[in-house]
């Protein structure tokens, strides 16, 4: 390694001394292979499984499989639940991120750690935990049923709750990071102009951290869309009400691996299309 570095040095414009005139270059010379090589390997690692799905897809029967009403039903349910779950996460997660980033109170560190629990918890365990709290014999679920006659398990609302539980940390962490990175002096400037804390948040903080909120919401949505373990454990699996695409994929794997590939591709294609078109709407924001 040492030799190759030495032999290459004169080519590098910053090396200077050599008589050969190196053409002027923008930036600081060659791309560092120490970064490029792992980057390319990492990309391959992420993308090759996708290629595997594409290669093994049963293309001749693809359209016919897609037209099956159960596929569309599961897809519609998946998109609906992931979107509502993301909306829920935004409503509760953004204020939570604000609290963690901007208000100091005892136990804040602990709370920040607790927020990430759903990230490390195996989703199936998360589902069981949700049942223990929100199930019909659960701490809160019991009360929900006796007071409002509402039961969450085995309902579409249950799917949304499970997805929100698992996906919310992605939003909170992303938004909290954006809040910590945002220059708080803008908020001070707004306060000197007579803005209340709520106005400051709405008209200054939120626009400033919008890229972080959007990135967090996208992560959150994608995570919710792919949610399997907590959903099947908490909300069960029934066509039309709780069988989302990942559940359909898993069950298809039991009998028809080809169908599972088709379903996975549909899920991927739809999410990529939606995210790409969303992007255009956000391009204009600073």
């Amino acid at each position, binding site marked *: 390694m040492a030799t190759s570095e030495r032999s290459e040095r004169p080519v590098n414009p910053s090396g200077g001394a050599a008589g050969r005139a190196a053409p002027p270059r923008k930036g600081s010379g060659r791309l560092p292979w120490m970064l490029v090589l792992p980057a390319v390997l990492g990309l391959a690692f992420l993308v090759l499984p996708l290629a595997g799905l594409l290669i093994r897809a049963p293309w001749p029967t693809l359209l016919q499989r897609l037209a099956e009403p159960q596929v569309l039903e599961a897809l519609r349910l998946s998109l609906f639940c992931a979107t509502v779950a993301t909306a829920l996460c935004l409503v509760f997660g953004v204020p939570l991120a604000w609290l963690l980033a901007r208000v100091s109170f005892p136990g804040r560190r602990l709370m920040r750690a607790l927020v990430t629990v759903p990230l490390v918890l195996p989703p199936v365990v998360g589902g069981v935990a949700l049942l223990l709290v929100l199930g019909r014999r659960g701490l809160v679920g019991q009360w929900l049923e006796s007071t409002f006659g509402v039961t969450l398990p085995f309902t579409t609302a249950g799917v949304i709750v499970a997805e929100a539980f698992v996906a919310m940390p992605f939003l909170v962490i992303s938004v909290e990071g954006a809040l910590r990175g945002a*220059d708080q*002096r*803008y908020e*001070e*400037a*707004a*306060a*000197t*102009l*007579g*803005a*209340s804390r709520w*106005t400051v948040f709405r*008209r*200054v903080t939120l*626009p*400033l951290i*919008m890229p972080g909120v959007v990135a967090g919401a996208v992560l959150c949505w994608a995570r919710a869309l792919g949610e399997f373990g907590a959903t099947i454990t908490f909300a069960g699996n029934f066509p039309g009400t709780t069988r989302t695409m990942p559940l359909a994929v898993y069950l298809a794997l039991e009998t028809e691996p080809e169908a599972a590939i088709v379903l996975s591709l549909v899920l991927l294609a739809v999410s990529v299309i939606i995210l790409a078109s969303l992007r255009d709407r956000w391009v204009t*924001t*600073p």
Partner: protein
Amino acid sequence: MTLHAHLVVTRPAFTLDISLTVAPGEVVALLGPNGAGKTTALRALAGLTALARGEIVLDGSPLHTLSVEERPIGMVFQDYLLFPHLSALDNVAFGPRCQGVSKAEARRTAAALLDRVGLTDHATAKPRRLSGGQAQRVALARALAVRPRLLLLDEPLAALDAHTRLEVRSQLRRHLADFDGATVLVTHDPLDAMVLADRLIVIEHGAIVQQGVPAEVARRPRTDYVARLVGLNLYRGVADGSGVKVGQLLISTSDRLEGPAFVAFAPAAVALYRSRPDGSPRNVWQARIEGVERHGDNVRVHLDGPIVAFADITPAALADLDLTPGQQVWASVKATETHAYPA
């Protein structure tokens, strides 16, 4: 709209404790070296930094009991802090909107203010499209849009390059003259302070060391920091009627006073000789050359000896005298070019 303030802010290794009074229409500059506490004082006036003790009273009513957004203030920050997602117009309209003015009304007010600072053409521009001078003017318009009774400016010209600074400084001076409330501005640049302020308050280590009108402060500095700012040699000694005894050296002056006193003279008033000069009633002392540097069109010579002093001489004189660091020379200053005043 008189401001009376006694500001005490305590930090682990620092305490700010100053009192100031600003009359309506008056511009007071807080001047001081970095870390002296001038920005802290400004933030305390705004409510962005909490007071440990003291009070802020504006027109007889207390300000320190109000939260930031309730105070009738306008503030211009060092790097302006224009909201990047809003146009220049909406930045200026932000304050009025917060005061409950309708959107259309707020925009009218903002447009009028932008017109006043000559930026009508840039109303729709986002802050990142504005030059430094334009951004500074938008920031001023934004602060004025809330009709403040107290205007606070934190290093309003520090972020500008030398050329823009000259232009913006004179515009700012005009706008401040039009403002009828109290103005407090913070700067570390003596020139900004002299041009913009009616009165200077010099702060060092969290306390006021000198205050007065700019000409007075410039003529009679009371600390080394101020002396350096205004470019004078300054000494503290004891006056005995005909001169001021500074250490071993008696500096004769034309001012007659007794007791503790300051004596100041300009570097240009110091003459240097290779051998002891004679005749005329001069102050003469032997000094050692510590260093030589360019200073404008002249050369500034750093002298050590009974007193530490700067002498400004012409490059020609430097060549004639053939001065080099470490060399012994004679320095002299005429009594009529010194200025002594009570300490």
